[in-house]
């Protein structure tokens, strides 16, 4: 046995990351560091990140292309909003109820949708989102239709009230980290492996005792709960919801987030979500051409880096490690020769 080194490069790296995270957590919401507007953008980015994380379980780990993320996020948002405005519930409680309802809803819907496979599942998930959006836009008594629900009370969890963007930033930050760690852990469990085996080949998965159908349904539930959480937080953060951000087009954006960041990486979901929320803000000078460039950009992205940004980084690391190994080997051979 080798003696254990305490400060391996890996651990040093982890410490650095932790310091960056803590620094961001403390510094960004301080008054005067970023403008109120940009803080709102960051908060939105964190909310999108939570929803995207759920999708990364389905798409990255399970290989299922779903267009339901935004729709189910809407379910969470509307349940939270309706309970807290129409029935005067506490918002914290409303979000929890929304999560439970979201889990049950995704389970039942998942059971139905996963009777289809591959592309046909994707078709049906579009149907689901459209169905939900139709309900959001037309059930006037509950959802106020296309005008949306206004004056949703701020989040209140009893001992703490979240009223400004700064406090929301901290809250969202913590929730996002918890969700992130959850997904990271999931990758290491038998469920993560089961999901990965389903993605690569369902027959192989089944011959290793994996119930493909239920495994996919569970992934849909996980994605659904994450989306509902994001939806509930979206509602209390913005204070206003309309059907607009829960439409099919938005679902497509979540897919692109994952693909941009890197489909095999949990951190990629963060990269993708933050890039796709911040880039539009920084690219305002492109005006009307922005979306065209964005669309073309997606195609180019798929052609040149199908595994996303993290894919490129991993590739680079892989090559570097390979080079180091080779160098070591050649050194060893040289010393032997000497």
């Amino acid at each position: 046995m080798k003696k254990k080194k305490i400060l391996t490069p890996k651990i040093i790296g982890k410490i650095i990351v932790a310091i960056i995270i803590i620094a961001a957590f403390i510094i960004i919401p301080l008054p005067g560091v970023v403008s109120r507007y940009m803080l709102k953008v960051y908060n939105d980015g964190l909310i999108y990140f939570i929803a995207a994380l759920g999708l990364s379980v389905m798409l990255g780990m399970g290989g299922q292309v779903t267009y339901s993320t935004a729709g189910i996020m809407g379910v969470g948002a509307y349940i939270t909003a309706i309970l807290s405005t129409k029935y005067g519930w506490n918002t914290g409680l409303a979000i929890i109820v929304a999560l439970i309802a979201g889990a049950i809803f995704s389970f039942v819907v998942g059971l139905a949708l996963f009777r289809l496979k591959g592309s046909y599942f994707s078709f049906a998930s579009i149907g689901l989102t459209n169905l939900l959006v139709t309900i959001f836009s037309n059930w006037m008594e509950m959802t106020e239709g296309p005008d949306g629900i206004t004056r949703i009370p701020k989040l209140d969890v009893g001992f703490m009230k979240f009223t400004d963007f700064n406090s929301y930033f901290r809250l969202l930050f913590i929730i996002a980290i918890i969700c992130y760690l959850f997904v990271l852990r999931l990758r290491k469990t038998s469920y993560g492996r089961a999901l990965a085996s389903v993605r690569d080949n369902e027959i192989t998965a089944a011959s290793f005792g994996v119930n493909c159908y239920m495994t996919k349904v569970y992934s849909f539930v996980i994605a659904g709960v994450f989306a509902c959480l994001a939806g509930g937080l979206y509602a209390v953060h913005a204070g206003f919801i309309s059907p607009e951000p829960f439409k099919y087009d938005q679902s497509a954006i979540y897919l692109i987030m994952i693909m941009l960041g890197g489909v095999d990486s949990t951190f990629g979901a963060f990269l993708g979500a933050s890039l796709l929320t911040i880039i539009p803000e920084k690219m305002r000078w492109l005006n009307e051409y922005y979306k065209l460039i964005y669309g073309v950009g997606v195609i180019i992205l798929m052609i040149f880096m199908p595994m996303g940004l993290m894919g490129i980084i991993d590739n680079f690391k892989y090559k570097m490690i390979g080079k180091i190994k080779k160098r070591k080997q050649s050194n060893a051979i040289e010393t032997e020769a000497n």
Partner: protein
Amino acid sequence: MERVLLEVRDVNKAFGGVITAKNVDMKVMAGEIHGLIGPNGAGKTTLLNLISGIYEVDSGHIFFEGNEITNLPAHKRARLGLGRTFQSPRFMNRASIKDNLELGTDLRNQFTYIQSFFGKKGADFYSELEELMEIAGFTFDWNEHITSLPYGQQKLLEIVRAMLAHPTVILVDEPAAGLNKQEQERVSLLLRKAVDSGMGVVLIEHTMEMVMNICDNITVLNFGEVIAKGKPQEIATNPQVIEAYLGGENDA
């Protein structure tokens, strides 16, 4: 010793008009390597798929350790202890070797997902893996990507993975195809190791030398029908079998 692990009774299967299994009967005992041979298209892989539950039988029964499993889905059969490998190795191509092997140990542990999430540890399989890898005759860094292994090693590793799951019966589909002599030898050793620990093995193989050397019993299929059964020596001299093989060659 003479314990029947797997019994196929009167199984039929047709795809459209093509009959791929016709009244097939087969018994696999504990501790035997049961060879399944026949010309190309004889329905060997189909039979394997019927046993492992990927296809449903049209009629007939399949028993596993005395219990009927005819109508069980594939994943439940696997959990009962029916392992298998594939003609071309099937791994999770975007995962490390470790993850791929752990897919096998997951099947052995059979923890629920929640148990696994909270870190329940299964039996340590590392010493077992080392033992198996010694037989397989190569080493690897298990954080490497699975695709970094050459084809032959992937095929060997697939058998290892199936064995890590501790199945009762293991269905092996053409393990030696595309391997060199040395690697074929390793495959035989691995399969011997499997039966020595009490498993039953069903082996599909085209390399006659290997089949004749390591199989205890052989079933010969042609056009979905069993045309001969018996010890390797009997099969080698069976006129029907010779005709089937020669006939097949004439056609080709």
